[in-house]
């Protein structure tokens, strides 16, 4: 009997310690959870901020006008609120960028994955990724100071601000987006497919294009979508080199303005909080957000599906 008291005390002590530990663990878990929930807060914040200002904007400007008017002159006497000119600027520069990045990036990925020796691939890949690490201000400088004058030698009627220079330089910047991700996708294709193809006498080129690329197609598509999304959201290169004149055009030799450059232009001035002009940057912003959100969601879905295929 007497010996059981210290034993009981021991048990109670251990039980208390275990509960305290449980409580401590719970507190830690909940604080970590709150950190993770901040990310949801951020998304909610973005959507709310954009929507509230945009809704107020659309109470004064009709949505139909917004999408069909061919002029964007919200700050001037004759006010037009058509997003099409800004949209065409964004899409034109992005299109030029993709036309540069896609062939080069895809070729690089196929070459690195199917032809290049392992050591070459190992050293070249991080170097190419360096292209994506360069601050975009630097690319903008390059577009304005080097590329535009160079192109003007070839084509003297080229405007100082134009979408061609900006698009080309943007394309160079997003090459790694396509080359790295596609190369990972190609590399992940099981070698059994390759070997089977070689076994039938196909060359590397035939194997690459007829067997491997189709097998890795979802990964490659993901990389292209991500690159497009990056190009659409780019700000500094186009703000510095593409111009600040909203213009509905497909001509790459004249000044245009992208959605992102417009937001910067207005932010550099002082637009009164709460005015219609202030809200235009949010209307432009929400258009941009919707585009990139759609692209990112599509690429996420494809990525999830394709991960399952090889697991």
């Amino acid at each position, binding site marked *: 009997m007497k010996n059981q008291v210290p034993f009981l005390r021991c048990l109670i002590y251990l039980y208390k310690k275990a509960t305290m530990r449980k409580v401590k663990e719970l507190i830690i878990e909940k604080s970590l959870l709150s*950190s*993770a929930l901040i990310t949801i807060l951020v998304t909610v914040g*973005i959507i709310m901020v954009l929507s509230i200002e945009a809704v107020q904007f659309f109470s004064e400007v009709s949505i139909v006008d917004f999408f069909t008017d061919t002029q964007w002159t919200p700050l001037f006497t004759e006010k037009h609120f058509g997003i099409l000119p800004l949209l065409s600027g964004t899409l034109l520069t992005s299109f030029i960028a993709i036309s540069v990045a896609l062939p080069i990036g895809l070729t690089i990925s196929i070459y690195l994955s199917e032809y290049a020796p392992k050591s070459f691939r190992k050293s070249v890949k991080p*170097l190419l990724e360096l292209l994506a690490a360069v601050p975009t201000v630097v690319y903008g400088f390059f577009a304005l100071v080097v590329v535009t004058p160079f192109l003007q030698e070839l084509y003297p009627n080229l405007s100082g601000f134009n979408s061609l220079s900006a698009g080309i330089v943007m394309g160079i910047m997003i090459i790694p987006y396509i080359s790295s991700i596609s190369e990972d996708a190609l590399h992940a294709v099981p070698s059994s497919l390759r070997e089977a193809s070689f076994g039938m006498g196909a060359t590397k*080129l035939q194997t690459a294009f007829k067997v491997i690329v189709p097998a890795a197609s979802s990964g490659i598509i993901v990389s292209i979508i991500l690159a497009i*999304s990056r190009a659409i959201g780019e700000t500094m290169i186009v703000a510095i080199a593409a111009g600040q004149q909203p213009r509905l055009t497909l001509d790459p030799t004249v000044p245009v303005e992208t959605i992102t450059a417009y937001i910067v232009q207005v*932010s550099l001035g002082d637009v009164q909080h709460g005015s219609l002009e202030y809200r235009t940057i949010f209307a432009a912003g929400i258009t941009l957000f919707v585009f990139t*959100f759609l692209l*990112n969601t599509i690429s996420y879905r494809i990525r999830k599906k394709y991960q399952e295929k090889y697991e």
Partner: protein
Amino acid sequence: MNSIQKNRWKDQAFKAWGILCTLIGLVLLVVFIGDIFIDGIQRIDWSFITSLPSRKAEKSGIYTALMGSIWILLLTTIISFPIGVAAGIYLEEYAKKNKLSGLLEINISNLAGVPSIIYGLLGLEVFVRIMNLGASVLAGSLTLSLLILPIIIVATREAIKAVPSSIKDASFALGASKWQTIWHQILPASGGGILTGVILALSRAVGETAPLIVVGALAYVPFAPSNPMDEFSVLPIQIFNWISRPQHGFIENAAAAIIILLGITFIMNGIAVYFRNKWQKKWK
């Protein structure tokens, strides 16, 4: 030429084209940097680094922009590092495969793809206006922290995922609690990977321009910030400002400032890659 030979020829031609494309990418990088180097290298001296901006190109320096960038870097690290790593730990170690965690995952993947200028709009409305922080270093850092948060979270998750489960199991077998295992075993083991991710994320933050312009970083700020509520400018914005000045002297200044910015970026990336290699070797 029969078809076998034709195919072989095509194969070699593509190989040549492939090498060419790869080299184009690298050559362009070298041309860029070389060109900027030539334009700007003579301009770099101690007075350039310690001078304040001026209307005369020869007298202008990057002092305030550099100090501003350092302030932004420090504050952003302090804010984003704990939150990002904590969120990453939660998602990787605690979250069960339910709807909430799936939602969190899609959400983070989406946030990583949102254009940086949208974060600027968010920062403008929430930090500058609603929270009344004004166009201060603090508002700028908070905005950039939100921008790089997804990068840190993903890097933390990947690093933790790479820790062999044997270590976890051994720790539990010895009676350690979940948190003890994380704190004493998993975090030290994945530390290198996390550090790599954080440094890469910060290197991105140092080069960001658009969100800070929207938040209100000024162009003419002739003093370094002395507290988080001060106005500020950063290197990329100073470069942006100088690029738009047509006198040749300012183009030289811009090139010199770019060299310094690139230097910082590449050093940070280099450190990150070094850590990544060291850490990867450990698990081989």
